[in-house]
Structures are given as structure tokens and as C-alpha cells.
């Protein structure tokens, strides 16, 4: 490579000689010849550089090839370590599912007891006030005081009816919310299935 560079310098030096020559046409011809030689040498140098590149690439590839088994070995070691974590991960997810299922079961049992009692008490109260209102209305034709009492009871009855509607709406909302544990559980079970499948595939890697 240094040899080529020397030639180029010499050629460019020669290109300066025609300045000293006479006549002008000879000076121009000599200059063109020297410049042509220099250009050819430059092209040759570039071609050498390019032809040298594949050999360097080959060297790098062959280096990588020699490193290949080590990289694969390191990857395999890492996979083996990670692979051992997968059953633990699946077990932890199963434990979470069991715990949440247990918690939701307890909550729903208590909720149903409370909802059942509340509904029952509301119903009993509504029935009592309803029958009292009916009694008052039956006897109210002659008694102004009793008419006022009957009206009060009817107002209370309406209030209880609104309470019952609100309780029903709340119960519906709670029933819907409690189902999200089951929906999440099924999604987690799909993830556990995929972890097991992935583990199986890793086991197949020799």
C-alpha cells in the first residue's frame, strides 16, 4: 500500500516537469500523461483496498465462528437457569388464583347473608307499614287525625320502596364486581398454560 502511495507521489511530481517543457502542446501532453498515470495508480490503490475488505470480513466471520460454541453454551446455561424459574412462576400464579378465589368466596358468602337479611328486614317492615296504612285508611273516613296518620305511613312506604330498589341495584353491582375474580382467574390460567408450553419447548432445546 505504501508502495502505491509512493508511485502516486512520484507521478504527481512528474506532472510538474511539463511546466519546464516547451512548446505549450508538449507541456500539455506531458502533463496529461503524468496525470493519467497518477489516476491509474489511484484507481489501482482503491481496488486493492476493496479487495482487501472481504478478507478482513472473512477473518471476522471466522473469529465469530470460533466464538459460536461459547456463545451457544452461555445461552444454553442462561436458558437452563431461566427454565428452572418457570415452574415456580406457574406455582406462584396458581397460589394467587387460590388465594383470591378463597377471599372472594368468603366475601360473597358474607355479602349474601347481609343482602338476604337486609332484604328480609325491608320486606317485613314494608309489609307491617303497608297493613298499618291499610287499617288507617279503612278507619279514616270519620277521623281526620287517622287520615293524617295514614298519609304519613304511605309516605314511609314509598321511602321503603325506594330503599328496596336501591338495595337491589347495589346487590346487582356487587354480584357483577365479584365475578371479575373468576374472569381474571381464567386469564391467569391461560398464562399458566402458555408458561407450561414454553417450558416444554425449552426442554426440547438440546
Amino acid at each position: 500500500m505504501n508502495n502505491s502511495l509512493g508511485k502516486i507521489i512520484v507521478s504527481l511530481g512528474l506532472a510538474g516537469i511539463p511546466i519546464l517543457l516547451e512548446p505549450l502542446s508538449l507541456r500539455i501532453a506531458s502533463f496529461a500523461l503524468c496525470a493519467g498515470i497518477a489516476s491509474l495508480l489511484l484507481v489501482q490503490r482503491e481496488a486493492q483496498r476493496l479487495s482487501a475488505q472481504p478478507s478482513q470480513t472473512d477473518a471476522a466471520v471466522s473469529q465469530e465462528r470460533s466464538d459460536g460454541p461459547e456463545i451457544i453454551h452461555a445461552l444454553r446455561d442462561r436458558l437452563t437457569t431461566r427454565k428452572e424459574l418457570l415452574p415456580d412462576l406457574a406455582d406462584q400464579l396458581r397460589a394467587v388464583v387460590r388465594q383470591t378465589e378463597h377471599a372472594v368466596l368468603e366475601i360473597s358468602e358474607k355479602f349474601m347473608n347481609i343482602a338476604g337479611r337486609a332484604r328480609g328486614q325491608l320486606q317485613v317492615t314494608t309489609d307491617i307499614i303497608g297493613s298499618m296504612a291499610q287499617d288507617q285508611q279503612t278507619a279514616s273516613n270519620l277521623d281526620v287525625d287517622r287520615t293524617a296518620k295514614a298519609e304519613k305511613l304511605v309516605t314511609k312506604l314509598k321511602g321503603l320502596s325506594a330503599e328496596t330498589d336501591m338495595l337491589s341495584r347495589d346487590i346487582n353491582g356487587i354480584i357483577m364486581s365479584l365475578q371479575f375474580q373468576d374472569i381474571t382467574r381464567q386469564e391467569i390460567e391461560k398464562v399458566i398454560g402458555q408458561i407450561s408450553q414454553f417450558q416444554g419447548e425449552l426442554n426440547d432445546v438440546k
Partner: protein
Amino acid sequence: MAKTFLIVDDSASMRQLVAFTIQDAGYDVLLAENGKDALEKMSHAKVDMVITDLNMPEMDGITFIRELRGKADYKFIPVVMLTTESQEAKKQEGRAAGASGWIVKPFSPSQLMDVVKKFVKERVQ
């Protein structure tokens, strides 16, 4: 006599919530953990309607319905699937197996009772 519903779900809390809704409307309920358990229970008791989940261990909902439709006593019993699956392909699979209706979780009690009343009414007619 009150009609009897069989609720099939592998989740205990789901069985409870569906049972609560159905009993609240004045019906009787039987509970089963999966398709196999449901078939076993149905061989000992008369059931008027079934509400079943799809994904269950031992025997899933689709297999259970196919088995059920193979039995003379339960060939025409209403079977509603109550599941997290909402894909059309799954619904078609359910219909092909013999499901009468499909409700996607989470259900609202009023939505469930609308479906239940529709089938109970049809059975009475």
C-alpha cells in the same frame, strides 16, 4: 312445585353468585363443579334448566352439552352457557353442541333472570 336449575361452574364463588340470583327468584338449585359432576347429578335428580360454564377441568361445557343432548330425558332441556368467552367461533361451537343461549361474564342478575324467564316461559308453553 318450583323448577330446579343445575348450575355448573368450577369456580365456587361463581356457583354461589348464580345460585343466589336464581334462588332469589324463587327457584331451586343444584350445583356441579364440571360437566362430569353435572351428568352424575342429573342422573339422580330431575332438572328443568341448566346454566353452565365453558372452561372447566374434567369435562368442559361443550362436551357436557353434547353428552346431555345424547340423553333422551334431556334432549330438549334449555342449556344456557355462562362464560368469559365472547368470540363468535366459540358461540357457534356452543350452538352446534346444543346450547340454547349464551351469556358473557360478568352477568347482571337482571340480565340472567331475563334469559331464565324466557326459557322457563317457553317450557311452560
